[in-house]
């Protein structure tokens, strides 16, 4: 589409074949941006397009798809948790310089924690910081609670220069027009459409091959998809329906995508206070008829949110190691007969194609999601169809987004597709689904999870144990309990895992992560993006 800019202006892109590429074009479907390089704010252009990770580096680089693997030392060379994860000591890398030439010190690292502690608005993970001390090249932190479940969040904290930030009046209200970081890139120019980053002269590691990063923001998925299809965007994270026809077939050799799962799931949340869905047997039966292949292929275009295979709801391979031995082989599959049996055993009757509950009332359910969320709605259409095989009459209600959110929050719904939190362990998933501590009665809002009002003291206890356990054995016992509850009670019916994927083109650059080389998630807005850029080489250079 766009004039390829093969003219005199060197800045305008990768010139066709022959000369090696110097520019990487990254796209996101997030609409026009405003100049805001503040790395703390999710609303900044840096966060929305992902380039903040090219400027601000973490202490430890953790592979988003393998959160249990030990991280790669980055700005910290060593880190050590004390027994109960309430204390952390870090050793700061030496010889690292900020882009303004000043060296990075332990002071800067300590300040990076301090600023989060001091500004509630910046402490997005609600980490209960205790003391923060820096001495020499060491930084010591204490926490008021065990941070086992948050350990990755703390280790991946990015480092900011104290000498710049301490002069900023209100760090949460600053757009940081000239960001200074330790990363290999600096902002060259900003326009609402495109932000261009350029390579620094020196960097504490080997300089990456990509001389310039160009982040373009498209107004919507369609525009982004078009750009991907015609090569204007080389890397993006976007939902592309029928991805094969629309994207891959446009250049089968180079148009690649890789969407591995991370530890977060999407599924059908069920209001466990409503009859007859308060009966686990009904939920299990529903689970047995839901066709995740259809959901994956039709709702998620065969790639976007990977299927959740394990009955425990733990996505694989990211969560493989957490799955309890007894559930290792327990995979989701459609089994209408088993479902019918579950129901009959529970006293339900299938009369013709209408399921009647033990009281003789036909079972109906309203599945609801906002009108605009086409993938969820598609999923619901499929689920609706699936449920009819066991005589449950479902209707899909395309709700108003705000009203929907309110209803979910207050528990005024039958069932809805919704996501869970994600994290380094399946704890975040289960906590979000079944934590009794955040349980509120139907009609009362302001909950931050457990929308299905799942009331299980056993689960609450197990969650608590997991978060505060002293050793791995205790933790796996607790987690196994949670998996058992999940499999037997099905408070939500998991359908898909959330992803950290990306679509990329190998036309100009190679070295992307993929199934074979899973060094990081391929999503340009994740911290691992920096690792990917460092790993890229011009195509044909090998």
């Amino acid at each position, binding site marked *: 589409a766009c004039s390829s800019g093969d003219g005199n202006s060197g800045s305008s892109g990768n010139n066709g074949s022959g000369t090696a590429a110097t520019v990487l074009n990254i796209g996101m479907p997030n609409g026009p941006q405003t100049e805001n390089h503040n790395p703390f704010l999710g609303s900044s252009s840096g966060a929305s397009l992902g380039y903040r990770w090219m400027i601000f580096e973490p202490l430890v680089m953790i592979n988003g798809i393998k959160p249990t693997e030990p991280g790669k030392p980055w700005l910290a060379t060593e880190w050590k948790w004390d027994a109960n994860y309430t204390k952390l000591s870090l050793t700061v890398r030496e010889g690292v310089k900020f882009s303004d030439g000043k060296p990075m010190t332990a002071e800067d690292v300590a300040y990076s924690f301090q600023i989060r502690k001091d500004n509630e608005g910046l402490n997005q993970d609600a980490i209960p910081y205790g003391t923060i001390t820096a001495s020499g090249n060491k930084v010591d932190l204490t926490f008021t609670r065990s941070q086992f479940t948050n350990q990755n969040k703390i280790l991946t904290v990015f480092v900011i220069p104290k000498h710049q930030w301490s002069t900023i009046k209100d760090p949460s209200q600053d757009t940081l027009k000239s960001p200074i970081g330790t990363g290999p890139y600096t902002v060259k120019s900003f326009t609402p459409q495109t932000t261009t980053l350029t390579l620094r002269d020196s960097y504490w590691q080997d300089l990456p091959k990509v001389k310039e990063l160009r982040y373009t923001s498209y107004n919507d998925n369609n525009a982004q998809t078009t750009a991907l299809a015609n090569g204007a965007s080389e890397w993006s994270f976007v939902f592309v329906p029928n991805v094969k026809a629309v994207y891959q077939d446009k250049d089968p050799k180079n148009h690649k995508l890789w969407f591995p799962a991370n530890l977060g799931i999407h599924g059908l949340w069920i209001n466990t206070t409503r009859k007859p869905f308060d009966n686990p047997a009904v939920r299990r039966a529903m689970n047995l008829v839901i066709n995740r292949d259809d959901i994956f292929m*039709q709702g998620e275009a065969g790639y976007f949110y990977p299927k959740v295979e394990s009955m425990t709801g733990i996505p694989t391979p990211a969560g493989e190691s957490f799955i309890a031995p007894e559930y290792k082989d327990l995979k989701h599959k459609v089994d209408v007969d088993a479902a019918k049996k579950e129901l009959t055993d529970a006293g339900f009757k299938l009369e013709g194609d209408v399921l009647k509950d033990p009281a003789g009332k036909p079972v109906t359910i309203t599945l609801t999601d906002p*009108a605009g969320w086409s993938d969820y709605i598609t999923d619901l259409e*499929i689920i609706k*169809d699936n449920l009819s095989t066991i005589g449950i009459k479902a209707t899909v209600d395309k709700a*108003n987004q*705000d009203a929907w959110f309110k209803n979910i929050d207050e528990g005024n719904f039958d069932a809805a597709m919704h996501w869970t939190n994600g994290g380094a362990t399946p704890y975040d998933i289960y906590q979000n689904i079944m934590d009794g501590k955040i349980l509120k009665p139907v009609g009362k809002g302001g909950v931050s999870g457990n929308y299905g009002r799942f009331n299980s003291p056993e689960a609450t206890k197990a969650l608590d144990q997991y978060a505060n356990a002293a050793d791995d054995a205790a933790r796996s016992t607790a987690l196994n309990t949670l998996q058992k509850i999940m499999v037997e009670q099905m408070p939500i019916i998991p359908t898909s895992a959330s992803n950290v994927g990306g679509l990329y083109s190998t036309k100009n650059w190679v070295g992307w992560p993929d199934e074979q080389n899973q060094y990081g998630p391929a999503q340009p807005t994740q911290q691992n993006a920096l690792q990917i850029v460092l790993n890229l080489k011009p195509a044909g250079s090998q």
Partner: protein
Amino acid sequence: MSAPTSTITAVTPEGPEVAAAPAKRRRLRFVANPKAATGLVVLAFFCLIAIIGPWIAPFDPSARSSDLIQAPSGKHWFGTTHLGQDIFSQVLVGTRGVMFVGLLAGLVATALSILIGVSAGFLGGAADDSLSALSNVFLVIPALPLIIIVASTIPSAGDLMVALVIGLTSWAWGARVLRAQTLSLRRRDYVEAARATGESTWRIITFEIMPNLTAIIASGFVGTVIFAVMSEITLAFIGISTISEWNWGTILFWAQSQQALAQGAWWWFVPAGLAIAILGTALSLINFGIDEFVSPRLRSSGHTRIKTKDGHSVRMRVGFTPVLSSKQAPVTPVVRREQEEVA
């Protein structure tokens, strides 16, 4: 030659054949207008589909099948969606929502514009000032964003709600036009005459003024229907409205969110769009018909090309009257007259 003086000379009564004929002709002329007739036929067709659509649809529009994204075929006339739903059925079933919202919103907006416009125009004074200010404010507020906001405010809005929202936000233009027209009617002699006869105010408004506004009201109604249909479809298209039922906007929303065009699934995108365009054209044609009915000047004259004296073909136009040769200067007018009369 001596007519009696000072007596009233009775007017020769006209023949009875002229009795009610012109009135009938006048009414039929609207339908006889080719534009209006075409528009009405197409509109009637859509209305019919709106009524019987759900019964004649070959498939349940939401039912999935294994024919995913299939081009039009004998089984699926307009092809299928990514879920294997039959688009032809969706278009048929979706007609009802479109027509319902369009007509209801048109009714609501028209009723409001009559209420506000006619009262403002007729009452004058402070009532006029405040009512015109109200409609001006509604004019200033951009309609589509307002509709988007209001529509997204109302939880679980159905077709009825959408229609009401569109109706409640789009009356201002009509009110303005009606006010201006009422203002000019208000000073008409026949309104004054009705007052002098002793008619009450509300009767003057409803029986003397309103009938004379019929054409404007009708064309305003048609205009709002067009606007409402477009708004409804736009709302559904950008995913704001919350209608669970099918309509053409919903089809386009799905087509768009599944990037039908990029997938090459033109059949998913084209029929609903064409249906909207055709419905819009039909309504516009009706409006032309109304305009031409009200203002005969706008009527495109039948023959505009005629043959002149020297055999040339000339267009009739203002300022240069064509000269015909067909009729020779009558030599014996008497005889010619008689023959014509006999014929």
